[in-house]
């Protein structure tokens, strides 16, 4: 009814342009190159690579949270649970079946995704405060399970053999490379998600649920899908986390700190922005690192920064950084409409 599409009229920038541009590809590529080159720089020791891998883990986990909380608008304080599911799946497979690191991580992601799907169904009617409480309960629930069921070996923990990829043993450097590749893939996934009809449906449910439904968005389907993808991405982080130090224990994974940290990383960085989890993940890992002697002070600092961001920059740090870029791009890309007369 609106006439055939005139192909020559297509603006090349269109596809990238369908939601407000909030990321900078140049920056992203530079970041990944730097991360991949980092372990090979002179003077970089193994522990530094491990520390960098830990940042990557937090970034991926926060990406998972951002899908659900940032883009779909469902606040989760339970992603530590999905992290634990990913980590234990990979750890148990490695311990009992000596699987490859890659297989372990993928299995962890799938298992977390399955649980995410189920939790999405169980909490279908929840939103806001109720969703936050429910997900928090889920994280505690997972914690209780790993603490008490023998196969998870509770606080004793499970020690894992050296990481193997394609039959080769890899050290800290190799592990960081694998982590960065995983991060690249999850970032691509989120980029595609946000710039597709699926991401649009998520955001539509977030902003105006009824209007989204009357536009044909199946609430049950897309909510559950968001839960599944979100949990699976955090599951990837879990699989990686288990193998950084080759050890999983309820001491660490039963704690709700992970859940809380991931949400904070997402909010501080900017929950609905591609760069948000990067900034937030870096922040959450590096604050205690720099303040190692003052662990309690790092708690205070995290809290104060979080509250400061909420009061001063509700869109997160990435939002503040992106603002001048956005203004610039808006001018450059769309000076005038490119629509065709009917």
């Amino acid at each position: 009814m609106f006439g055939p599409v005139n192909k020559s009229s297509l603006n090349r920038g269109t596809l990238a342009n369908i939601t407000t541009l909030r990321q900078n590809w140049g920056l992203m590529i530079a970041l990944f190159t730097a991360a991949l080159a980092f372990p090979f720089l002179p003077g970089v020791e193994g522990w530094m690579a491990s520390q960098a891998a830990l940042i990557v883990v937090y970034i991926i986990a926060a990406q998972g949270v951002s899908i659900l909380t940032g883009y779909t608008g469902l606040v989760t304080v339970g992603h530590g649970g999905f992290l634990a599911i990913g980590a234990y799946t990979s750890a148990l497979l490695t311990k009992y079946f000596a699987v490859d690191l890659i297989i372990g991580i993928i299995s962890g992601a799938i298992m977390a995704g399955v649980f995410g799907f189920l939790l999405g169904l169980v909490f279908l009617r929840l939103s806001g405060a109720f969703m936050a409480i429910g997900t928090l309960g889920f994280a505690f629930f997972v914690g209780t399970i790993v603490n008490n069921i023998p196969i998870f070996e509770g606080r004793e923990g499970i020690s894992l053999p050296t990481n193997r990829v394609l039959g080769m043993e890899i050290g800290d450097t190799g592990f960081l490379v694998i982590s960065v590749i995983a991060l690249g893939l999850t970032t691509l996934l989120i980029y595609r998600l946000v710039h597709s009809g699926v991401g649009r449906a998520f955001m539509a449910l977030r902003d105006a649920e009824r209007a989204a439904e009357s536009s044909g968005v199946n609430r049950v389907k897309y909510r559950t899908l968001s839960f599944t993808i979100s949990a699976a991405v955090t599951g990837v982080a879990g699989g990686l986390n288990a193998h950084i130090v080759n050890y999983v224990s309820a001491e660490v994974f039963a704690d709700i700190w992970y859940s809380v940290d991931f949400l904070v990383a997402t909010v501080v960085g900017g929950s609905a922005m591609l760069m948000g989890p990067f900034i937030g993940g870096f922040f959450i890992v590096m604050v205690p690192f720099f303040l190692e002697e003052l662990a309690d002070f790092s708690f205070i600092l995290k809290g104060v920064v979080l509250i400061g961001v909420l009061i001063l920059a509700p869109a997160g740090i990435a939002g503040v950084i992106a603002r001048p870029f956005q203004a610039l791009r808006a001018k450059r890309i769309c000076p005038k409409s490119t629509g065709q007369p009917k």
Partner: protein
Amino acid sequence: MFGQLFISGVATGALYALTAVAVVVVFRNTRTINLAQGDFAMVGAFAALVFIKDFGLNYYVALFGAVLTCVLLGIAFERIVMRPIADSDWLTLFTATLGMYYVLHGVAGWFWGRDTKAFPVTFDPTPIEVIGGLVSQGHVINMAWAGGIGLMLFWFFRYTKQGIAMRAVTDDPDTAMLMGIPVRFIVLLTWGMAGFLAAFAGVLLAPIVYVAPEMMDEVLIKGYVAAVFGGLYSIPGAILGALMIGITENMAGGYLGSHFKTATAFVMIVVLLAFRPQGLFGIQKRREF
């Protein structure tokens, strides 16, 4: 055995109720789930500890001091953090209380260390007989305190000007403001009340568990579960929910083994939220939250 488990379940539940009621009161007047509620209580416990140990004060004076500390803490939190962002969306309000959770954890760890401390005042360990079961005196005292506070709340909401105003704000903040109720002051009062309840939760629980920065984490979750029983809206619902959790987990612990004790509340929350998110008792008023 049943009677004993039941009574001590009620005693534990009564302490959960203090947290649950605070969660409900804050939620229905400010739309915020207060994640720092447990840490308010933890600060109260530490304050009492300091008053007794370092200042050599009497238990009751220390309790009063803890209440004062927590009320001031709640009020300060509202003024400094929550008021500037009062018009923000739900996630912002919630994460602000999360920020407070970090800050209080850090402050407690910084001042008093991460290791657990015994509370200097303990109860006489000889159990006494209550309706056919042997119950520790501590439990009886806690029940008495919690019951007293419950009556006080009832009186407050039913007969005092502020209490009635607070209920009006709960029902409809906009209309309340048009009717000349000082909504901001009522919100401040709400946070003060959260601090008040937290102080009792912390100080009464301290002899039973221990004093440490994370002492309230699990209690807080159980408080949430109890609050959900009342649809996050009804105070009697939250109290009943808290008692039910206390009793159920005590029964589960007594008959099935202590592993099941902690799991009970979490199973309850998942089941409850899956099937009756509007709460077991009454109808929740504002569905969008």
